[in-house]
Every structure is written in structure tokens, then in C-alpha cells.
């Protein structure tokens, strides 16, 4: 790429959901680079460390973030971040949410309850999200309406079915999210 002097605008899509639901797999499917991992240092209380003075003696913990990248154009780059575990790491969720154009909440129908915290998080912050049902073998047959009821979703939140191991299927989820974000803007 030539040095045009352009510094792109960066945006994020957050991929959320319970442990083992397929977040990293989805990032892997659509990213143009092998997914990367970076670590944030947090205090025991779960707050980010931005000052290393005197930290040697303190109890800290690290939280790993998996992410991928899609270069949209020389002017726009999209990052996909998988969320770290729920509960302890809300600080990281807040950081991920800044600048996110929206979120995907991945759902495993065998463990619907594990997606409640993610849904609450994005609802409370008015961040547009779609629910993507990852089709694991042995998942319970269900209709979108059953999922909507079980998750207590607003009638306009899109529900899409996907196989996160498949690039086209994962792309469809992202497309549904951006489309939904645009619809929200247009007040549809």
C-alpha cells in the first residue's frame, strides 16, 4: 500500500456471548488476518491499569482479547473483537463498546441463559445488536419466535441463524447487523 498519508477511521463490531459459543471461531472466519490476541492488565477489582508505577507488588490479572480485521477501504478499517468472559470483566466490555457500531450476541440454544448478560449489556447502552443463533449439532429445534420469547427480545431485534465456521454465514450475520444499524438510524 502506498503512503498516501491517509489515516483510516477505525470502527468496531463486538462479538459477544457465553463461553464456548463460537466467538473466536466467528472472528477467525471473517478476519483478513489470522486472529490476534492482546492482553489488558487489570487490577483484582477488574479495573484497567494505565499506570505501571508500583504495580510490581500488586495483584493483577490479565484478560485476553481475540480480534480480527477487515480493511474496508484505505479510509475505513473494521475490527471485530470477541468479548472476554462475562461478569468479572465489565471494564473491558465498556472499553470495547466505545466506538462500536454494533454487536453480535451469539447464542447456543442449548444454553440460552448464558447470553442474558450480553443482551442486558447492549440493551442498557443502546448499542444496536443482532442475535445470531449458532447451529451446533444437537441444538434444540426452535423457531425465531421461541428464541425471541426465551430471550425476551424486542420485536425489532433481528434473529439470524448461522454456522460461525463458515465465512459466508458469518458475513451474513455482520451484514444483518450493519443493515439493522442503518435501519435504526433511518428510524425504520
Amino acid at each position, binding site marked *: *500500500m502506498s*503512503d498516501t498519508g*491517509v*489515516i*483510516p*477511521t*477505525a*470502527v*468496531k463490531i463486538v462479538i459477544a456471548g457465553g463461553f464456548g459459543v463460537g466467538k473466536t471461531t466467528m472472528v477467525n472466519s*471473517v478476519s*483478513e488476518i489470522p486472529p*490476534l*490476541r*492482546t*492482553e*489488558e*492488565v487489570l487490577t483484582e477489582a477488574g479495573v*484497567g*491499569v*494505565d*499506570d*505501571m*508505577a508500583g*504495580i*510490581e*507488588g500488586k495483584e*493483577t490479572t*490479565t484478560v485476553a*482479547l481475540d*480480534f480480527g*480485521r*477487515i*480493511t*474496508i*477501504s484505505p479510509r*475505513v*478499517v*473494521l*475490527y471485530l*473483537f470477541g468479548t472476554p468472559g462475562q461478569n468479572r470483566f465489565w471494564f473491558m466490555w465498556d*472499553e*470495547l463498546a*466505545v*466506538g*462500536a*457500531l454494533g454487536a453480535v450476541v451469539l447464542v447456543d440454544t442449548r444454553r440460552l441463559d448464558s447470553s442474558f448478560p450480553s443482551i442486558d449489556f447492549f440493551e442498557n447502552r443502546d448499542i444496536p445488536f443482532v442475535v445470531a443463533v449458532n447451529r451446533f449439532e444437537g441444538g434444540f429445534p426452535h423457531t425465531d419466535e421461541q428464541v425471541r420469547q426465551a430471550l425476551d427480545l424486542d420485536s425489532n431485534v433481528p434473529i439470524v441463524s448461522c454456522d460461525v465456521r463458515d*465465512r459466508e454465514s458469518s*458475513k451474513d450475520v*455482520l*451484514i444483518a447487523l*450493519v*443493515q439493522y*444499524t*442503518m435501519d435504526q*438510524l*433511518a428510524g425504520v
Partner: protein
Amino acid sequence: MAGDRDWWFDEAAGPLIRPYAMTRGRTRPGAPNLNLVTQIRASRNRSDLSQLTPEHQEIVDLCHRPLSVAEIAAYLNVPLVVAKILISDLLELGDVVAGAPFQTSDIVDTKFLQAVLDGIRRI
């Protein structure tokens, strides 16, 4: 690049000892606005790179095309807080430049979102 990550978890030595050394004692980023996706690019006019540590040089090399803070941290295999400190040094020296901070207006712009949509369709 640090090949093994054991140092990070070496409790006997204490966490953050090595990254602390890497930042030459700097403890907090001088540029407080760096976030995960802030874009960093090498400047065309740079100071004497031989004065820099290998980690600083590596960042300048990586950023011949714009990269996010998170990517830089991942490629250097250092925690984000360390990457932010090193990048702050380079910003102060003028060896790299950072993209504008995030603006909400970006993501509530229909044209912008349409470009993102088209970009996703192309991959």
C-alpha cells in the same frame, strides 16, 4: 519479538518486570487518548531511529501502514498498557502519528455505514 510468554506469568519475578524495563521506567502513557483501535502510522520524517530501543523501532517498522494500538500490542507480544507507553514515546518524538480520536458522528452516518456494508460484502 518476545517468543515465549512465560515471563509474563512468572510470579517469582513479579508481573510486569520485563515490560517495565522495556518502557525504560516510564509508567504511564503520555498520550492518554490511545484506545484499542487508535490508528498509528510511521511519520515520513523521523528522528534518529538508532537512538530508539528495538521495541520502538519495531513499532515504527510495523506502522509503515496504519495499524491499531491493539495490533501493535499483539505483534510485539506485550500487554496493551506497555504498547501504549511505547507508542506515546514515539508520538512525542514525532516518529509516528495517531489518527483522530473516535467520533460518534462516524457511526451514525449512513454513507459511512453503507461503505462498511459494501466492504463486508466484498470479503
